[in-house]
């Protein structure tokens, strides 16, 4: 059987990243992503990469679709910045292209920043059960109606993906040829594709509304939870570290 790329999705595991409270991880993701945009030093942004790489290595998540693309994108971004940056001390000239010290710094900064955010996001997605994130958010105060909107979306995405594939195949079986049609015909096919999906979605919404209301959803402003997403001591340390990082960033921004 041919090798299949793993979709970017949760990979069950028992690492400390897996065990970390999903809300704490989400906070790290948000603060980390903002942080690499706030910090203007390419060396700091670059320095984050080995740390993320080490985490990645510990997880051994295998091949992940899009990772190679992300790395190449960051390389291209860095290269473009380097060759088109006009300021700084000129090192090399190749026709209209010039390589300067400022260009190299800018390239490294942009490429590393992009890769930092992508790797952080991948680590979050690979180690966080989406369901647990939704329950975690509800248990720290997110109104449960919003929390279940997330859970429902998570549940329905693969269902609609499968249905979309069926509808597309049904179209092919009836002679629809997307690849051999002009834009106008393509739009007609696209409309024909979405109509059955819309009808199906409406019927699913009906069934789900019956199911949810039939089980008291929305009856009370609050609800209890069988599944408890608990904070551990490790989460306490992670929150402490995050507070320290955020404080450092604030000092850095104010100082700059």
């Amino acid at each position, binding site marked *: 059987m041919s090798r299949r790329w793993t979709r970017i999705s949760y990979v069950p595991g028992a690492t400390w990243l897996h065990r970390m409270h999903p809300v704490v991880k989400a906070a790290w993701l948000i603060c980390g992503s903002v942080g690499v945009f706030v910090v203007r030093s390419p060396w700091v942004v670059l320095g984050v990469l080995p740390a993320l790489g080490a985490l990645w290595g510990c997880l051994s998540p295998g091949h992940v679709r899009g990772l190679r693309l992300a790395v190449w994108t960051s390389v291209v971004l860095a290269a473009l910045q380097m060759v088109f940056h006009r300021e700084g001390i000129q090192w090399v000239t190749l026709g209209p292209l010039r390589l300067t010290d400022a260009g190299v710094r800018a390239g490294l900064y942009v490429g590393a920043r992009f890769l930092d955010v992508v790797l952080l996001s991948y680590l979050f997605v690979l180690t966080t059960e989406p369901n647990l994130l939704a329950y975690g958010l509800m248990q720290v105060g997110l109104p449960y109606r919003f929390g279940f909107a997330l859970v429902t979306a998570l549940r329905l995405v693969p269902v609609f993906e499968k249905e979309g594939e069926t509808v597309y195949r049904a179209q092919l079986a009836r002679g629809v040829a997307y690849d051999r049609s002009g834009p106008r015909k393509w739009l007609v096919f696209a409309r024909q594709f979405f109509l059955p999906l819309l009808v199906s979605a409406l019927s699913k919404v009906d069934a789900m509304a019956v199911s949810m209301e039939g*089980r008291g959803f929305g009856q009370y402003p609050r609800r209890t939870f*069988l599944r408890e997403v608990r904070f551990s001591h490790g989460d306490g340390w992670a929150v402490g570290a995050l507070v320290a990082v955020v404080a450092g960033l604030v000092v850095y921004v104010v100082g700059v």
Partner: protein
Amino acid sequence: MISLRNFSYRFEGAEAPVLRDVCLDVAPGDFLVVTGPSGSGKSTLALALSGFLFNQYGGVATGSIIVDGLDVGQAPIYEVAEVVGLVQQNPEAQFCTLTVLDEVAFGLENRCLPREEILTRVDWALDVVGAAHLRHRELATLSGGEQQRVAVASMLVGRPKVLIFDEPTSNLDPPATAAIFDVIARVRETAALTVIVIEHKTEYLRRFEPRWIRVDGGMVAEADRPPMAMWRAVRRKGVDGAGRVGHGDTVARLDRVSVGYGGGWVLQDLSLSLNAGEFVVLMGDNGSGKSTLLQSLVGFLKPVQGRVEILGYDTQRTPISQLARYVGYLFQNPDHQLFGDTVWEEAILAPRNFGMLDDGRRAEIERWVERVGLQGREADPPFRLSYGQKRRLNLISVLGHAPRLLLLDEVLIGQDPGNAAFVLTLLRETADRGVGVLLVSHAPEVVATYADRVLFLSEGRVVVDAGPDEASVQLAALGCWAYVGSAEDIPQRLADGGEG
């Protein structure tokens, strides 16, 4: 427990009421089986009894429905839901969470029960439906039968007094169907419930000696005897001519084909051929590879090993658009394959796309439209048709471009006996005109009445490939009792391991 008095209901915008002057009394602990043709009002009755008809639809209701002293038409839906639970047809559509434990606990959490009580009741409900071993599974990984057990547990856990099942086995194979009805009977006994089951497969329910209620044209009446078994009714309306041998040229050939995805093999080393004019019924348990086989035949799935040919074209090398010219493919859900703005546009869609819509073809399609009873509806949007009408439209929509091979994936699901017999008769006639027909079905009666040949799949391999009579013998020898003889006897045969 339940009392309906002169209850009528008309949906908003509809000309005629869907339920008329319904009077019905149900005692605590009663077991009702509601039968009737598709579109007769059975599901509307279920929605009315569970209160959703008044809560979610803007129709006009007259008369009264009292359940356990509660006026269902007036009471808030949450109060009704504590008394009446509704298990819908498709478990997948009613799940609100991602795991078994979360799903079964969902209703109790919403009602703010303490965690310890939730845990106790969830364990009890899973135990009653025989799903305790599924406790930590993700819903997406469950089979159809397992999903339905979880759906039942998620309603049972709220300890309603009435549990309504709306065609709970329509997507299940015979063994899973029999198992779910056993679960329903056990639930009724264990929890002392009043149970109402809407179902076409009445043969499975006779042994529970229920009260039989028939809904037809909105009228509800008690039947003094069980209705004719689903497939026996189909058989009575059937045609002669099954079991023929000596067919035309080969239209499809699989040579040592293996297909796999998601890390496992679905079809393994499979070799067979299908001939022109042959009506073949493809059987097998859920997950045995039937749909994968059909999808491989039209090139949607490419074999990892081996070779698939349609009229000599290798599906690996031929574009689907070219293969589709020779193949008609009918999917399971009628709504997934309605693309035209009108019934007529839908009927001519394929021949138009294939560039073969001439006057002769139009005239032939007009005859098809008339034959399936859709004359006068040509300008209507397809989604306005009833389920049975959509199915008939689906069928003529894949016949319009004169395919040489017809592939039909469980198209009899949800059909009442009348509609099913009509569709099967059309398929038999299509085969008799020289088209190869491959129909996925679980019903032995379909084989006996319409088929020339049976293919039985098990774990991706063909374990039986024979004419109807010989196939019965071979299936019996394999212990596949649910697929042999009359469906009426299936529960008994499954229960005694095939004796007799």
